[in-house]
Structures are given as structure tokens and as C-alpha cells.
């Protein structure tokens, strides 16, 4: 079946759309099956066909070239072997207009706003084309190559200006519509709110306690990672990887290492692969533990927070022993690691495994079987398969909706194909299922660690001196982070720094899907839905 579908979309494209350019690609080297440049008038038709064939929109971005913009769409399917393909349209600079596909893919709504925000490309027929990451009154399109940076001191100037605007625009920013019965109103949640996990703002349209509509407003943690990476050398980008999703930073290290290794055509030693997988899985457990603690705290249970942080500290001790950092790891290197693991590493991990097994049982008894917890979470915030597809949801949130799609198994990288682990899945798609999936994932991660902790082979930790630049070309890599599919799309011009590096972060799409999950919920359920999505804001805003 899978091969048939792939053929279908390819032949369909060649027959019906007649791409201007069509390139078959080597999946191993570039991360995509084929690349088609279609006429921009046909992109809506193309997207509709992709959706009909069960593809989700993995990422949508743009590249600024001297003569035109390239708008790049990556489509993918929930199956193995992976079916990622790349469709592009060219947008001439004078016109600066592209057709919007937001009526076909719901996830395109935010993606297109992001492209508009960073590149200034207008999407015709977009329902709500405004800035998403930068403040609304910004006048810059930062990812244009003609943008050469802001003058020194503009940060203070602009902040002061924004403070003024903020005062003036209070009524606009916090609209109060009072209807006849005064039942419908707007409630502003965030950006400073204890349960928005950082700096998310949600504008809720309510009728009494019921949510009619929710509009997440993001961008409060925008840290210009993508622009920064275009300026820094490849090596200097490592710290960025530790700070994108700081809760599960190892997976991001992994993705960046794989990306550049793929582009350079190098392969690390087996020892490196083993250590990478062990540290990443331990980090995945810390990430889920942090989620569990804070999620339960959002629901009003304070005790699990202390339990989870206690276990988390134990893992952090182990990772600190290896990397020297507690949180924002930049441990991986191209073709290797920063340093070898110390002698105490293996015994420390082995001591941790039985302890954590017992603790997982405790968590199940304390939380999963807790009737109050179940009442708060069962049947709340349901994400259907259709919506998961339309929004491009990935990670535990997708698996809780009955789709066992996990890149560690379905697009295997490193030594994952050799390992024995199950892909956790649940079928109801509600908050409780997402909890179950994450609990199961912690167990599976522990299983992976205990399988290979004794088998780390000897070998070299680095490959020695490597060239500082990456060969010209386009490469796509994706890994399964703690929150879902993290993709990186690199366009290298052969120089010392990336020409364009798109970061496809999972929480961006997952949070977008929240809009449809909270319809008809109570306000207190919004908190539980948001908590169950496990979003990390700086990763969304980048």
C-alpha cells in the first residue's frame, strides 16, 4: 500500500500539475523523496490532493533569493517508510503574493502568518494575515537578506515605544464586548499566568464559563534563533540547540548533529551512537517528568511536583556528570560528542533504573488511578484524527489520538532500528490519553536505556578535524523530540554559515490544534488541555 500511495502522488503531480521542475532525491542524503516546483496558481489544488491522500503539512517556510522567494512546503505521512516530499512555489519579488492554503490545511494558517511576519510575503485569501512572532507595530521583515540588523540601542527605544503603545492600546488589546445579556465576554489569559507555561497569551471568548473561541497569541519569547544562525558559523549554533527546547534539549542536539552529518556525509562511531541514544532517552524522561509535575500542579495537585522534581534531579545529576550542564545541553558535536562519558556514568545509570521503575509504579497509583484526576481529564479536550492531520500534530499528542507514529521507529535514525521498544499509543485523544502515553513513554525510554547501558562499545568520540563549511545543497532531518517531530531544513550555500535554517518545532503545530480542542470546554479545562499539550514557549516562538 505505501508504495502505491507514493506513486500516486508523484504520478498525480506529474500528470495533473505539470511541475516546472521535478527532482527525484535520495532520501538517505536529503531527507525527502522528491522535490517539485509547481506553478503558484496550482498550489491549492496540489495541497488539496495531498490532504486527500492523508499527508499532513509538516512545515511551510520561505527562502529569500536574489530574484525571487521560494515558498517551501513539506508534506509527510504517518507511515513507514517515510513519505516526506517537498513542493515549492516561486514568488517574484515585485509581486510578493502567494495563494494561501489555510482553507485546506488548518496548520497553514499559522505557518503562513509566520512567513508573512519574517519575510513579508502576502498570502492572498488568508483569513487573518497579521504578525505572529514580532510585535504588531514592527516595521521589519528580519529574515530578508536585505535586512542588515538594527542600529545599536534600538532595543531600548523600541521597548519604550511598545510600553507607550501598550498603555494606549489597552482597550484594543483587551476587548470588552458586552452583549445584550452580558453573557458573552473576552477573557485574557496570560502572558503572565502560572499555568500558561511561560509566556503564552490566550484570548478566550466566553459565554458564561463556556469557551466559544480561543485565540492563542504567541511571540512573547521570540529570540531570533533563525536569524542568528544565518550569522553564526555552524559550530557556534550549538548553544542555540540547547536553548530552543530547553526541557528536552538532547533531541535537538541530536537533530542538528544528524543534519550536518547528513549534509557532510559523515558517520559517527558506534560508541557515539550509543551514548547519544542513552543521554537522549534519559533527557526524554526528565522532560516528561517536568511535564507531569507541572501538569498536575496546574490541576491543583501539589505533591507530584516534588516527587517528579526529585526524580528529575537524579537524572540531572547523571547528565551533569556527562555534559557539565543541568539544563541547556550542548553536548553533541558533528561526528561525535564533546567528551566521553566518565567512569561513574554506567553505575549511576544502573542504580537509577530500579529506583525509577518503582517510582513509576508509585506515580500510577498516586495519579493515574486517582479518581479525581480521571474525572478532570477523561473526555476533555479531545483531538480527533482528522484534526490531528489538518493541524499536523505530532508526538505524544498524536499518539494519544490513536496514531502510533513515532520517528524513532518510522523514520529510524542512529541505532533505534536495533532496539526493542514499543510505540506508546492510546485511542481516545483526550487529556487522560495523553497522560497515559507519556507515562508509557517514560517506561519505554527506561527500557531502551536498560537494554544498552551495558553494551556501549569502545570507539572514538570524535572524528578529528572536519571542514568548517557544509557542502552546497538542501538537507532535511527530523527526529522524535519529547514533544514530537522536530525538523530542520538546511539550505547551505557552501560557506561557513547556513544560508537558511528552518526549525520546524512540534509545539508550534500542537498548540495551534488547541483552538479546536477547547471549543465548549470550561475555563478550568483550558488549563488542563494546555497542560496536556506540554508546550514549551521558546520552542514555539524560536
Amino acid at each position, binding site marked *: 500500500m505505501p508504495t502505491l500511495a507514493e506513486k500516486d502522488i508523484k504520478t498525480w503531480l506529474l500528470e495533473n500539475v505539470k511541475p516546472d*521542475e521535478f527532482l527525484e532525491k535520495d532520501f538517505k542524503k536529503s531527507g525527502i523523496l522528491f522535490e517539485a516546483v509547481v506553478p503558484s496558481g496550482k498550489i491549492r489544488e496540489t495541497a488539496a490532493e495531498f490532504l486527500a491522500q492523508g499527508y499532513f503539512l509538516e512545515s511551510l517556510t520561505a527562502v529569500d*533569493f*536574489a*530574484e525571487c522567494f*521560494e515558498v517551501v512546503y513539506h508534506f509527510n505521512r504517518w507511515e513507514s517508510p517515510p513519505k516526506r516530499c517537498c513542493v515549492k512555489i*516561486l514568488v517574484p519579488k515585485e509581486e510578493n503574493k502567494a495563494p494561501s492554503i489555510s482553507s485546506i490545511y488548518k496548520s497553514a494558517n499559522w505557518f503562513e502568518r509566520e512567513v508573512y511576519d519574517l519575510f513579508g510575503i502576502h498570502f492572498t485569501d488568508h483569513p487573518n494575515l497579521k504578525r505572529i512572532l*514580532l*510585535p504588531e507595530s514592527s516595521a*521589519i521583515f*528580519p529574515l530578508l*537578506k*536585505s*535586512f*542588515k*540588523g*538594527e542600529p*545599536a*540601542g*534600538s*532595543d*531600548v527605544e523600541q*521597548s519604550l515605544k*511598545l*510600553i507607550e503603545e501598550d498603555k494606549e492600546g489597552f482597550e484594543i488589546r483587551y476587548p470588552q464586548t458586552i452583549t445584550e445579556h452580558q453573557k458573552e465576554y473576552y477573557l485574557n489569559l496570560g502572558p*503572565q499566568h*502560572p499555568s500558561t507555561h*511561560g*509566556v503564552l497569551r490566550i484570548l478566550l471568548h466566553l459565554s458564561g464559563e463556556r469557551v466559544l473561541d480561543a485565540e492563542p497569541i504567541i*511571540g*512573547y*519569547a521570540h*529570540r*531570533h534563533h533563525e*536569524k*542568528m544562525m544565518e*550569522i*553564526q558559523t555552524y559550530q557556534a549554533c550549538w*548553544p*542555540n540547540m540547547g*536553548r530552543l527546547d*530547553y*526541557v528536552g534539549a538532547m533531541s535537538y542536539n541530536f537533530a542538528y548533529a544528524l543534519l550536518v552529518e547528513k549534509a557532510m556525509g559523515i558517520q559517527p562511531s558506534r560508541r557515539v551512537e550509543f551514548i547519544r541514544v542513552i543521554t537522549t532517552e534519559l533527557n526524554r524522561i526528565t522532560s516528561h517528568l517536568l511535564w507531569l*509535575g*507541572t501538569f498536575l500542579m496546574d490541576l491543583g495537585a501539589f505533591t507530584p*511536583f*516534588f516527587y517528579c*522534581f*526529585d526524580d528529575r*534531579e537524579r537524572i540531572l545529576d547523571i547528565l551533569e556528570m556527562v555534559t557539565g550542564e*543541568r*539544563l*541547556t545541553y550542548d553536548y553533541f558535536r558533528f561526528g561525535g560528542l564533546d567528551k566521553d562519558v566518565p567512569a561513574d556514568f554506567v553505575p549511576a545509570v544502573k542504580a537509577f533504573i530500579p529506583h525509577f521503575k518503582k517510582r513509576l509504579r508509585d506515580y500510577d497509583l498516586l495519579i493515574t488511578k486517582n479518581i479525581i484526576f480521571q474525572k478532570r481529564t477523561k473526555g476533555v479536550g479531545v483531538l480527533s484524527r482528522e484534526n490531528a492531520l489538518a493541524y499536523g500534530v505530532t508526538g505524544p499528542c498524536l499518539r494519544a489520538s490513536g496514531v502510533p507514529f513515532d520517528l524513532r521507529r518510522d523514520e529510524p535514525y542512529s541505532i533505534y532500528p536495533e532496539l526493542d521498544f514499543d510505540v506508546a499509543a492510546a485511542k481516545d485523544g483526550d487529556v487522560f490519553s495523553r497522560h497515559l502515553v507519556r507515562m508509557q513513554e517514560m517506561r519505554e525510554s527506561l527500557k531502551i536505556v536498560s537494554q544498552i547501558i551495558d553494551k556501549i562499545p569502545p570507539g572514538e568520540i570524535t572524528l578529528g578535524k572536519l571542514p568548517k563549511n557544509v557542502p*552546497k*545543497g538542501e538537507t532535511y532531518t527530523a527526529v522524535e523530540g519529547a514533544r514530537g517531530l522536530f525538523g530542520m531544513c538546511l539550505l547551505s*550555500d557552501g*560557506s561557513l*554559515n547556513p*544560508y537558511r535554517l528552518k526549525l520546524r518545532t512540534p509545539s508550534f503545530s500542537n498548540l495551534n490544534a488547541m483552538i479546536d480542542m477547547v471549543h465548549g470546554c470550561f475555563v478550568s479545562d483550558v488549563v488542563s488541555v494546555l497542560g496536556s499539550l506540554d508546550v514549551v514557549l*521558546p520552542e514555539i*516562538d524560536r
Partner: protein
Amino acid sequence: MEINPKELELMGKTQSPPPGLVNFFKVEDVFNLARAHSLWPLTFGLACCAIELMAGGAARFDMDRFGFGVVRPSPRQADLMIVAGTISRKMAPCIKTLYDQMPSPKYVIALGGCATAGGPFKYPGQYGILEGIDKIIPVNVYVPGCPPRPEALLAGILELQKQIIEGKAQGRTSPAVVHDSQDNRPAEHKNAISRAEFRKTT
């Protein structure tokens, strides 16, 4: 009212207080002692450093030992703002609003490189962040690190306590534009390359 310098020294003060009808030195000192030992921080995280702030509140580091564990979600009930993380320009107005909403006397700790001076996200010509929270609100204590360990945060709060007890916790803002000659990271903005050329060679 002039005070004999000897007496001032005894009270740990170096300056005469502002002239007023009556000055209650001792009472003020007692107040400060109380303030220092019942700091109520505002729950407030911006980025990575906030996770270490949470770890500071959890079982191992236990901020509560020192009397600052009463973390308040509302600025109106808090008197200590721990700015933990990167301040994006979009967020800066909100932080200012939060600060203005806190009742006086209030104190600010800048936690981590970002809140202190922009941290790793600072480069010449950056467009997204505010390089240090002290550009818009006064700061009492800076805690360096990326992220600082929870112990460093504790040390920072203990330092703040000391300042408060000594009556020196006024905080300071930095001059608006600091010309930083130290920052020599290359900021080579690329020019656009031609697509046709790029496609030809790959």
C-alpha cells in the same frame, strides 16, 4: 534634623536621612528585617532560567528554608520579581506593567545572562530581544549564569536580603545605550544569492 556622625555609624548608615518631621530609624530597621525575611516572589518565567527557578522551589533546593517560598501568581501580592529568562521586545511592556502593579517596596533580581545583559542572544544588530531588564526597571541583584544553578539563585536572594536589612536595596537602572566594545562576535549579514546559480551547482 542633623545627626551626629557617630550615631549614624552605630546604626549602620552613612548618610543623613531625608529631612522629615520625625524619623523612625529603628522602626524602619525592624520593618526591613521583616521585609527581608518574608519575600514573596512573583511566579513568573520567561525562558530556560525559569526551569531552574522551579527547581529552586522544589524539594532538593527548597527556597522555603529561607522564607521566600511563598510564590505568588499575582503581582499585587508579591514584592520580589525574579526576571528569569530572555526578555523579548514583545514581552518587555508586559514586564513593565507587572512591575508597576507590584506594591512598594519591591525588589528585582535579574536571573541569568539574558535578564542581565542579553545573554547568548546578543549580537550587533539583533532585532528580537531587550539586552537586560535593567534598561526598563531597576534591578537589585544580578545572578550570572546560563542558566544559573539553583544555588546561585539562593545566593542571589540571600544577597538581596542583606541589602534590604542594611537599607540599601534601591536597585538601579543602566544607561539606555551601552556601547559594548567587548562584543566582537562577527555579524556578517549575507547578501541574497541567485537561485538560478544555486540550482545549477547542486
